[in-house]
């Protein structure tokens, strides 16, 4: 685990989790216990861990879908944990861009409508885009090499194209944090790096931090920092299993 230096007080980290503890049942042993984890502004963090190590749970907590039993998560300096459900949904819609492993797209919307989706839900993001919506989508699509697909139904896209559309949707309206949950695992290895590079490109343009979750360590070298979930999660398990 790379050392983390606290950022200056006037520019809070994109994400800070402290003393986080979570269990699916109240009296059960926590599956997740993380003393400290952060993502700085503009940082590209590679979070890895084998399946079952609690990656999905951690992402649920970070995205505000799950509520920790103890500890707190601060996003952009705001106490995310203390917010109510509605506020948290709103906050997620405004400040996060989320890319799933697969099936990212709403099947009944075309490519352009899928990219626009967050703008219909988050007023803040819609405002940020303003009147430039059309040209912004055009630029974003060009960066991702999908501008010729904008009018197409998503069912006609290849998996790689779908992931690019998902990246465009995650970054429309410039949210501060991109969370990518194994977005490359459905791609073949030739395409992984290319996809990752375009992902970095659009994230940089939006000035977003990236929290990239994967079990595929071959991509590790492309990131500014690498975190092993096993190392930060002290709930886990035998001390011997350090990688």
């Amino acid at each position, binding site marked *: 685990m790379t050392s983390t230096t606290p950022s200056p007080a006037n520019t809070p980290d994109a994400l800070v989790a402290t003393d986080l503890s979570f269990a699916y049942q109240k009296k059960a042993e926590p599956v997740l216990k993380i003393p400290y984890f952060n993502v700085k502004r503009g940082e590209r963090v590679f979070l890895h861990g084998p399946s079952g190590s609690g990656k999905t749970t951690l992402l649920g907590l970070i995205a505000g879908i799950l509520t920790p039993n103890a500890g707190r998560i601060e996003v952009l300096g705001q106490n995310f944990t203390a917010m109510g459900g509605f506020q948290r949904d709103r906050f997620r819609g405004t400040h996060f861009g989320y890319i*799933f492993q697969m099936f990212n797209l709403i099947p009944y919307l075309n490519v352009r409508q899928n990219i626009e989706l*967050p703008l219909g*839900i988050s007023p803040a993001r819609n405002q940020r885009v303003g009147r430039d919506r059309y040209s912004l989508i055009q630029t974003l699509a060009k960066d991702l090499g999908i501008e010729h697909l904008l009018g197409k139904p998503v069912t006609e896209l290849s998996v790689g194209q779908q992931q690019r559309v998902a990246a465009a949707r995650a970054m429309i309206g410039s949210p501060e944090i991109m969370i990518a949950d194994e977005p490359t695992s459905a791609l073949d290895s030739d395409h992984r790096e290319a996809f990752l590079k375009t992902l970095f490109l659009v994230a940089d343009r939006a000035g977003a931090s990236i929290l990239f979750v994967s079990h595929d360590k071959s991509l590790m070298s492309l990131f500014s920092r690498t975190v092993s979930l096993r190392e930060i999660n002290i709930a886990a398990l035998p001390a011997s299993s350090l990688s």
Partner: protein
Amino acid sequence: MFALRLALYSLLNRRLTTLLTLASVALSVALFVGVERVRQGARESFANTISKTDLIVGAKGGSIQLLLYAVFRMGNATANVSYESYQKIHNHPDVAWTIPYSLGDSHRGFRVVGTSEDFYEHYRYRHDKKPELVQGVVAKGVFDAVLGSDVAARLGYKLGDKIALAHGVAEVAFQNHDDKPFKVVGILGKTATPIDRSIYTTLEGMEAIHLDWTDGAPPMDGQGVSADKIMGQKLEIKAITAFLLGAKSRIDALRLQRMVNDYNDEPLMAIIPGVALSELWEGISYAEDGLRVVSGFVVVVGLMGMLISIYNSLNERRREMAVLRSVGAGPRLIFTLMIAESTLLTGIGSALGVLSMYLLILVIQPIIEQNFGLFIPVKPLSSLEWGYLGLIFCFGIVLGIVPASRAYRNSLSDGLTIRI
């Protein structure tokens, strides 16, 4: 608005299911509103079986019974009205016209009505329509008969045919008047009222065939009076069964009714047809309530179909819900989205239903009127019908809560996990 647009896209994407669901909602709504229309049409046609007649006068008895035998040719009179009393009332200064009826005989199941030429002149149905002859002339001679259109069509008679009347009104008659046959001189056009199911003769004709009868029994052999002989003599009418009466004004009608009901010389009764008709309709309206209940259940079934189709779609849409949540949709928006779907389905389905109901009425209106005498008017939705549609709409939305709350709970438990 966003949810509504999203719901619309989602429905358009599942085109086949959406079409089938819309069809089931539309059909059930069309049936419901259609039944309502037929019910109104039936009620109106029923009320318009007879119009312009102010009073129906007969021997004292039940008013429904009088209505049934005088207008609907059903049942029998228990007593007669003397011709003398009839004449007296007929000549009253407030009376504009009368139509005498002499009932009691039949021909192969069809009632025979002895009447006067006033019938062709003054009888009205459906506001201002009068029975018109399509062939021949009105019955004037003693043994002339005019056929209602159903009678002519069913029995295949044409002008000049001879028919024998039967005593009594049973389909199979035991006592025939076949010694004095009648000649068909005219055929009436279709009226889609009980008029079509009767044969019209003159009062004299009815008197003639019973002339040689004594105490309700036919003459013994050799004592009968032949038809030729009757033609020569002057027939004296002793009694009729009932008569219709048109007064000079509405107020006169009420006065006349009182006068008839208080008539001293013999027990008579006068009824206002509109009042008696609605009384009769009330008596049989449980049938229409039943019809309405059944069509109401059909609507419930149609909307249940919608509920099931939405509910079934939920599982395959869990990933869609997760994606929506990832871009900031709360469970509340998911709920709204599902409600929007059922709202759209119910709304569009109902609109389609009403539309197809109108189209259907336009197509079958002439056929129904021709065959059943039921006139179903094409008119805008009544406030009652709007009320029903509103109720259906609300019910559809309420049913939509079931899958919506399921989706709400799913999206809470699934979060961003994509389950397939």
